[in-house]
């Protein structure tokens, strides 16, 4: 994980070319129709669409959690040339309902010392390390899962409604954190139902409808629900 952080400047030099950071061509699963999109380093693309339209399935397919066909590349490298875990360490995914596999919060972090500054930035008490996971609110779970994913050092982050259950101050904290990471080159796909948030955080918008992904022209326009 630290090796990836060290490799970051070299990657950024690479990004100066036209090569997109993440490129998806004709990705299809049992449910998704062929989807294509690309994402540059430091860019954020909002993904919108009615509930059940396939936004989560799109992110899962990109993270290689569901089997899919098509070409998915990171900085020009086909994901089939690396193992699933290797791919997911570079293309991180934070689901709308993050999972927990141990009893206390701290057990989910290999290095709490490294996590604690970000935990504080996201307005969570440092004592949380000793808390049982069951004590966490939905909003705290979302933020801690975000910290957990960032610690791995991904180059692309797939966020599935990361601020859905958060108070306005915490929403702002998450947006600030992601903006800072984008300045360091992180590419972000951000699923959100909030039009104003999409306009705030993203340069471009995609809509997903009935398993079909379409790119919207220009700034993110309002979509009908």
């Amino acid at each position: 994980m630290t090796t990836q952080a060290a490799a970051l400047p070299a990657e950024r030099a690479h990004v100066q070319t036209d090569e997109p950071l993440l490129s998806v061509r004709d990705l299809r699963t049992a449910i998704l129709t062929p989807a294509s999109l690309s994402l540059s380093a430091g860019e954020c693309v909002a993904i919108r669409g009615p509930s059940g339209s396939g936004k989560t399935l799109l992110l899962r397919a990109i993270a290689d959690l569901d089997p899919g066909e098509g070409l998915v590349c990171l900085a020009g490298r086909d994901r089939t040339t690396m193992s699933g875990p290797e791919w997911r360490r570079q293309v991180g995914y934070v689901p709308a309902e993050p999972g927990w596999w141990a009893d206390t919060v701290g057990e989910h972090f290999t290095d709490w010392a490294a996590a604690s500054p970000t935990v504080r930035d996201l307005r969570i008490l440092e004592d949380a390390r000793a808390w049982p996971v069951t004590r966490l609110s939905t909003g705290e779970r979302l933020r801690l899962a975000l910290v957990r994913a960032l610690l791995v050092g991904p180059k692309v982050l797939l966020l599935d409604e990361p601020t859905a259950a958060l108070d306005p101050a915490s929403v702002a904290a998450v947006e600030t954190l992601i903006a800072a990471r984008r300045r360091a080159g992180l590419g972000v796909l951000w699923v959100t139902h909030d039009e104003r948030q999409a306009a705030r955080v993203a340069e471009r918008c995609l809509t997903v409808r009935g398993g079909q992904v379409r790119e919207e022209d220009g700034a993110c326009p309002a979509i009908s629900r």
Partner: protein
Amino acid sequence: MSSYIALNYWELAGASIFVLIDAGLSIAFGLGMHRSFLFAAVRMVVQLALVGLVLTTLFSTVSPLRTGLAAFGMVVFAGHEAAQRQGRRLAGWWAYGLGTGSMMIASAMVTLFALVTVLRPNPWYDPRYAIPLLGMILGNCMTGVGLGLDTLTTSLVNRRAGVEAQLMLGASRQVAAAPVMREALRSALMPVINSMAATGVVSLPGMMTGQILGGVPPAEAVKYQILVMFLIAGGTGLGAVTAVLGGLYRLTDARHRLRLDRLTAARAG
């Protein structure tokens, strides 16, 4: 076999009064179980009578082919029973194949070990030793394999979010599924530990009791029972590990994804 008291059919019929009493209790208290009681009792009598016939012919002709066929049939039946008890089954032939295969490997290895190195009957495949031994090992192995697979699938479904959370962070399938694997193996092996711990104090095992009733000195019967318990522990452990690891292999894939789509839907009971 020197001194045992042979039973005649009238005496057996007399003892069946207790099943009739149970059925009567069911009617008296409105439990609605009297039909199942009588049906199960009749089924047991028929099954055992058939087994008696089969064993009589098997033992009279000490044939490796027939012994092998009988053993194979027992394993297939055990595999079917273990699959029947699964809440969620693996899709396709894996549902039967995995349980049956694990039991076949485990019970064959342990039975052969006992026949070749410990008991050494002549010939080694003498059905009078091979078939009862296999039956006892298989019966326990079936419980272990069934429990292990059932816990594995149920727990993977219930803890899917936690397992996938680790996969999302770049963990391998072995690491992500380790808690579930441990839980499945623990539930498969627990009955063996319990039965070893309780044997002799809480329960007198059927085989030992049977030998004592058949005129074998208790000290000899105890030695046989200890042997059988060791074999059961070995067969159950081996079978459960094979089945659980095989199930885990099937429910994940080479890209380290969780593949619950390879399970059929949950069934009631």
